[in-house]
């Protein structure tokens, strides 16, 4: 893992704030009925996508989940393209066919969110297989939640990845909730990372802290790039809001929500940056203004973009 420069610290901070502002804005815009379908925001979990993706090259790939906005943004997708897709517009990278839940952008190795819990894990593993097969050095990161670790594909994929020493990092964002069900209700263990032993791969647990995630992910990515095989990295993440936007979280105790908010990964990182003179409050404020602007512009762009034409409905099913 390489040391971060001041610029990289700033960029990381900017990405985290960007994700939060995007999600906050999306909550409003979605609640106002401007976006169809469902959206799942990752507020409270911004450290993971950014800290992990800061270790990646452009040609490295990621596979993500229904809660995938942060991952796509951290991997660098253009905000306008991103928004256009979420609005279902024709100029989204998926032509408005995927929306939030299946967003993909090949040019940056964003292999797709997935509407099927656990569905993306073997796909990411296949991308890692391809990387090894082609003898290139691309690493794949597979994001998923602790709920997904209940699916058989989790087991099957990690087994194969370790068996074949595939260049992949499995990042489990354990936010304690699978929809409306808390971890203790669906899992008899505390740390998903413990399951790494079943596959003879390293299992690592880190808190919801940018620096720790960055370091652990860096080790895992380097290990993968060296051809030494996969790592299961678990982040003890927190979900601030409901499973999807509109979920009133009636099933959730108030102090669990407060506890999650108290563990704000952005505030924590900000404090670190401030106290280490890597960022000044005025810089932060300027960044925030800039981000808010670009988010507004992206929303405007998406709003004003055309929907696909019904005549295009059946286009491109087969190559």
């Amino acid at each position, binding site marked *: 893992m390489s040391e971060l420069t001041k610029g990289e610290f700033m960029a990381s901070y900017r990405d985290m704030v960007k994700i939060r502002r995007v999600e906050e804005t999306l909550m409003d815009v979605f609640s106002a009925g401007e976006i169809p*379908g469902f959206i799942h925001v990752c507020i409270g979990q911004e450290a993971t996508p950014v800290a992990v993706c800061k270790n990646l090259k452009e040609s490295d790939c990621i596979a993500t989940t229904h809660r995938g906005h942060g991952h796509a943004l951290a991997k660098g997708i253009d905000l306008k393209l991103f928004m256009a897709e979420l*609005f279902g517009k024709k100029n989204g990278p998926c032509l*408005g066919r995927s929306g939030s839940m299946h967003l993909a952008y090949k040019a940056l190795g964003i292999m797709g969110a997935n*509407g099927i819990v656990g569905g993306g894990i073997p796909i990411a593993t296949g991308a890692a297989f391809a990387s090894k097969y082609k003898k290139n050095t691309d690493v794949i990161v597979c994001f998923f939640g602790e709920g997904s670790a*209940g699916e058989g594909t989790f087991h099957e994929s990690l087994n194969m990845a370790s068996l074949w020493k595939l260049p992949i990092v499995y990042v489990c964002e354990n936010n304690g909730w699978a*929809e409306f069900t808390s971890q203790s209700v669906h899992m008899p263990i505390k740390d998903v990372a413990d399951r790494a032993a079943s596959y003879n791969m390293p299992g690592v647990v880190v808190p919801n802290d940018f620096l720790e995630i960055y370091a652990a992910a860096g080790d895992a990515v380097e290990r993968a790039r060296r051809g030494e095989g996969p790592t299961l990295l678990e982040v003890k993440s927190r979900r601030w809001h409901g499973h999807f936007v509109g979920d009133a979280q009636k099933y959730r105790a108030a102090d669990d929500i407060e506890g999650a908010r108290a563990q704000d990964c952005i505030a924590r990182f900000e404090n670190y940056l401030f106290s280490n003179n890597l960022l000044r409050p005025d810089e932060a404020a300027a960044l925030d203004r800039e981000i808010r602007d670009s988010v507004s512009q992206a929303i405007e762009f998406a709003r004003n973009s055309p929907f696909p034409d019904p005549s295009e409905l059946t286009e491109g099913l087969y190559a």
Partner: protein
Amino acid sequence: MKEIRYLWAINEAIREEMERDGNVLLIGEDVGGPGGSFGASRGLAERFGPERVVDTPISEAGIMGLAAGAAVCGLRPILEIMFMDFMTVCMDGIVNQAAKLRYMFGNQYTVPLVIRTPAGGGLNAGPQHSQCLEAWFAHVPGLKVVMPATPYDVKGLLKSAIRDDNPVIVVENKALHAMKGNIPEEEYLVPIGKADIKRSGSDVTVVATSRMVHESAKAADRLEKEGISVELLDLRSISPWDRDTVFTSVAKTHRLVIAHEAVKSFGTGAEVAATVSEEMIHELDAPILRVGAPFVPVPFSLEKAYLPNSEDVYKAVKKVLERIL
């Protein structure tokens, strides 16, 4: 009579059957405390406790096999698969296990098991949350498949399914969850395998399922104003399906249109059309037309253009009336 929503009719059916029979239980993701992803099991965990309303890990294949094992041991599990699209993760348990256990073990076991699963579009939930896959299950001997289109039918059919000693797949339609309708105060059942004649008519038979029943009714209204008399059948059960009622109707109208939301090609409509052209082609005065979804995944933002609707039924009826043999 009382007015009730489709979703709440599901809830009532489960509640009544769980009251009646201690071996009936509900199992699935988020079905317990949270009351289910769509709210169908609201209040049931409070009423019956976590032993009988069981929140599971996200493990559809495991739950499905587990339900089959519990069923052969005398329980009567109702399994919720949150979206029909997720049936893809548990096909083995349904098809190779639950459906076959009885027959392949020489009738030693019964497998009283219900899978409730919401299908279809209408929520802009996109390609992996909007499919109608009933044709797969109808092709599998040992399963029963029902597709209730109204609050009345979903309650009555779900109760019948729970009492049935065989695996029954109850396909709900998400777009119908909020629909209101009247049901009796007292207990009733709707038999599996019986179609419902929604309206009598003489010019053309429309056989529809699930949401397309309502779209077809709209089309029939419009056609009526043009002097065209539609006999509308709600098939309700796909496997077994009510050949007699369909045959009787076609023998009367001599024209047939079939409408479902699933992809048209290789959908359940093909079986109805094929059976009619096998058994009573001589009765037909026109081609059999099918209305169904186009041959693409359900796109996120073009969902409306994608979904078959009353206009499509209207056009199909007009067409079978034009093209006299």
